[in-house]
């Protein structure tokens, strides 16, 4: 396993109480595979990516669990060691609001070369720039734009630059946090196709976080469904999209609009996810669930069904 996350908890302190944004999450990912996290806005997807990279806000209340990277528990590293050894060299990150993720007063080439020089991945500026050029070619970023500033580029170009920044360091794992959600549909498709190609050609391992189920179905090998700070289903993509197990996954897939199918009203899930401040002790989805029964008043454990993981009482064995 490249990355093995066990019982990861990441809570924020707010005035109204503690927000349990990432609540006891466990998953693992093999080298050269990909895992897509899907779920509604506010279910803790972005917090999860920040928790893995230890990008903690000032108001963190609890941050615990184990993160094994190549068999080593990196949670035991102190901040300085984590910064030097893990960040960007081992795990790179493509953030959600990529439009604003580039420093407005530094040239693209300087920003891309910077982590290579700081991390000791290139000894001279020239060497770093060569690596940057290589990465930019891979993502289809025109090299004559390298000397530009971020505000002189379109959104799609900026996104490509950031993906190139992540690839230039040749990290073992890339976390892509909704990399295309701020872009138009054509640019989205373009970048997703590039990602697919890069994955095939370079054997990239990545975690993709998205709320767009359509994108997820295109590009993933494994799928994790998040709901209210927890993983409710973890499965390989093929079986997941044909036959989702969890009632929430089922509803999520039904809510995708389809081009060739006439529907008067788009499927949606009534109600809202529970607040992550003092979440309910029962199954967190039970209030909105169409298959609710008596057991749902207690929090379900994780059940394994043919190698797939689901957090729902429907799959209790020995029924």
């Amino acid at each position, binding site marked *: 396993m490249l990355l093995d996350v066990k019982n990861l908890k990441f809570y924020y302190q707010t005035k109204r109480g503690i927000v349990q944004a990432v609540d006891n999450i466990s998953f693992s990912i093999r080298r050269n595979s990909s895992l897509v996290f899907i779920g509604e806005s506010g279910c803790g997807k972005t917090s999860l990516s920040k928790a893995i990279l230890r990008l903690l806000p000032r108001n963190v209340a609890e941050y615990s669990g184990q993160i094994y990277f190549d068999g080593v528990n990196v949670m035991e590293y102190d901040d300085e060691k984590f910064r030097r050894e893990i960040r960007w060299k081992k795990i790179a990150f493509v953030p959600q609001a990529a439009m*604003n993720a580039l420093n407005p007063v530094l040239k693209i080439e300087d920003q891309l070369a910077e*982590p290579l020089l700081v991390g000791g991945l290139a000894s001279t500026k020239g060497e770093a720039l060569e690596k940057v050029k290589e990465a930019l070619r891979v993502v289809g970023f025109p090299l004559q734009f390298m000397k530009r500033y971020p505000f002189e580029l379109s959104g799609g170009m900026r996104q490509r630059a950031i993906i190139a920044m992540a690839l230039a360091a040749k990290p073992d794992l890339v976390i892509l946090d909704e990399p295309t959600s701020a872009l138009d549909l054509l640019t989205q498709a373009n970048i997703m196709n590039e990602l697919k190609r890069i994955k095939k050609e370079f054997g990239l391992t990545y975690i993709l976080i998205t709320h767009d189920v359509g994108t997820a179905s295109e590009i993933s090998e494994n799928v994790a469904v998040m709901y209210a700070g927890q993983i409710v289903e973890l499965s390989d993509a093929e079986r997941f999209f044909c036959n989702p197990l969890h009632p929430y996954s089922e509803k999520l897939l039904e809510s995708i609009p389809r081009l060739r199918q006439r529907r008067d009203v788009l499927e949606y899930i009534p109600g809202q996810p529970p607040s992550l401040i003092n979440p309910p002790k029962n199954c967190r989805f039970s209030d909105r669930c169409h298959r609710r029964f008596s057991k749902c008043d207690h929090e379900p454990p994780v059940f394994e069904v043919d190698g797939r993981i689901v957090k729902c009482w429907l799959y209790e064995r020995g029924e």
Partner: protein
Amino acid sequence: MEEMGMTLASNLKRILKYFLVRIIIMAITLLIGVYVVILVANMGGAVDEIRKSEIREAVGRRLLGDENYRIMSSEERQKYAKMLEEIEFKRFGLDQPFLIRSFLYLKQALTLDLGNAERLTSDTGSRKVKLIILERLVPTLVLMMTSFLILFFSALTFALFLSRRYGSFFDKMIIALAPLSAAPAWFYGIFLILIFAAILKILPFGGMVRVPPPDNAFEYFLSLLRHLVLPVFSVLLSSIFISTYNWRTYFLIYSNEDYVEMAKAKGLSSAMIERRYILRPTMPAIVTSFALSLITQWMGSITLETVFNWPGLGRRIYEAISNFDSPVIVGANVIYAYLLATTVLVLDVIYAILDPRVRVEATGGVEQ
């Protein structure tokens, strides 16, 4: 190669054009500003009427007081007085309408031909407006610059320090102390004088140097320093907390930008993030604030200079205003306007160097 040379030349042309336009705009602003000052300082011509009636009164008193004129009949005397008045009016240029003279003043002001004061004299007894202003400019700069530079850079340093330690004890302390800035510097000045000059007797009450001034340059400097301590501290006391608080909040906002978090994810050290991702993008704002606060210092501070008996420009301008000495008022404002215009122009250049987004405006955008 040829193409590159051509783009360079056209870029240069654009930059020159940009600055030419800036200079023209600045010149027009200066022109309008100085003219308004002339109108206001002369109260739109009302000051002329005051001066005319003063001249009439003086002439009348002279005729009445002199026995030689008593033999004249009152009609003759009035005619004679009228003649004398006309001569005096002509001498002061009051025979022409104010509107025409206002443009004459404008020309003189802009060419820095500031002329003579009407009532004030310089400390050395001269009536030259230039001397009256310049002899006070230096002490004002010594006081205001010293306190401003200490204030600005220490506030900036503290603010950076606090933005790294959001919510810490020091952070909370600065926030709690910020209301101290509700009182002006001279208020703290009175307190400091009371404590350190009147009770403890370790620092002077006021003035710029000891009386009589020391002959030795080094001793003169030491004496100046001793006299600077209290006024500088009162400025610091009244502004440092709010200023630190302001900058701290500013840095906090900027350290929440996505690119700062990104820099963290990239594995940069916190010193590097601070330098390249917080200070560098905020530098234009810091420079602007620095330059604009700097020029407000040049006018001095009337009350602070009065409390510390400091021979500064602020007090001189106050005297000029209360004596309707319009040449001095206009002169001070013209010098100020020139300083302001130059600063803004320099600021434009620095901005273009610091911020690529402004630079593009200057070079007319990137060629596609």
